[in-house]
C-alpha cells in the first residue's frame, strides 16, 4: 500500500479484530437459547461485515467495495424485517384462531344451558297462565 505508512498495518489489524468478533457473535448465534438471540447475533455479524467491507475498500483503494457494503446493509435489514414480520404475522393469526375457538366454545356452552333451562321456563309460563285464568 503506497503512501499510507502505518495505516497499511493498522487497517488490516482492525479487520482481524472485527473478524474475531464475528466468530464470537457466531458462537452467540449458535448458543442463543431463543430465536431472537440468534437474530440479534446475526444483526451484529451483518454490521461488522459492513465495517470490514468499508475498511477494506479504503485499504485496497477500490471504491466499488463501498457499493457492495451498501447492498449488504440493505440485504441484512430486509432479511431481519422479513424474518420478524413472518413470526409476528403467524403469531397474530394463531392468537386470532385461539380467540375464535374460545368464543365458539363459550357460545356452545351457553346454548346448552339455554336448552337445559327451556323446559322449566315453559312450565313456569304455563303455570302463570293457569293462575291468570283461575283468577
Amino acid at each position, binding site marked *: 500500500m503506497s503512501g*499510507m505508512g502505518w495505516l497499511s498495518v493498522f487497517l488490516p489489524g*482492525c479487520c482481524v479484530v472485527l473478524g474475531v468478533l464475528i466468530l464470537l457473535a457466531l458462537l452467540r448465534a449458535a448458543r442463543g437459547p*431463543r430465536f431472537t438471540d440468534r437474530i*440479534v447475533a446475526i*444483526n451484529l455479524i451483518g454490521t461488522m461485515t459492513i465495517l470490514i467491507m468499508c*475498511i477494506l*475498500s479504503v485499504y485496497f483503494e477500490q471504491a466499488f467495495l463501498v457499493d457492495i457494503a451498501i447492498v449488504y*446493509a440493505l440485504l441484512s435489514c430486509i432479511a431481519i424485517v422479513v424474518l420478524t414480520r413472518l*413470526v409476528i404475522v403467524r*403469531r397474530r393469526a394463531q392468537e386470532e384462531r385461539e380467540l375464535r375457538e374460545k368464543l365458539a366454545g363459550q357460545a356452545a356452552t351457553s346454548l346448552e344451558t339455554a336448552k337445559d333451562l327451556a323446559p322449566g321456563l315453559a312450565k313456569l309460563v304455563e303455570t302463570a297462565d293457569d293462575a291468570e285464568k283461575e283468577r
Partner: protein
Amino acid sequence: MLIRSIFAGVLIVAGVLVACVAVLGVFRFRYVLNRMHAAALLDTLGLLLVLTGLIVLLGLSWQSAKLLLIIVFMWLASPVMSHLIARAEVMTHAHLSDECEVTPDDDGI
C-alpha cells in the same frame, strides 16, 4: 496529513472498541431484551465512529459520500430492526414477566 490520519486512526480504534463492548455485552447479559441494548450500540455508535474515521481518512470524494449514505441508512434502519425484534420476542415469549417486570398490554404489544 499525518495529523488527519492519526485522528482517523483514533476514531477507527474507538469504533472497534465499541464493537468489542457490544459483543461482550451480548455475552454478559442473560436475556434478549437486555442483549439488544448492547447490540444496538454497534449499529449506531460503532458504525458512526469507524465510518467517520474512514471519511476523515479519505477526504471529500464520492467514496466518502457513499460511506455517509451507509451511516444514514443504518441509523434509519437500526431502530426499526430493534423494534421488530423486540416485538417478535414479546409476542412469542410465554412467560415474559419471569424475565422482566414490564408486562405486555392486553392487545399484544
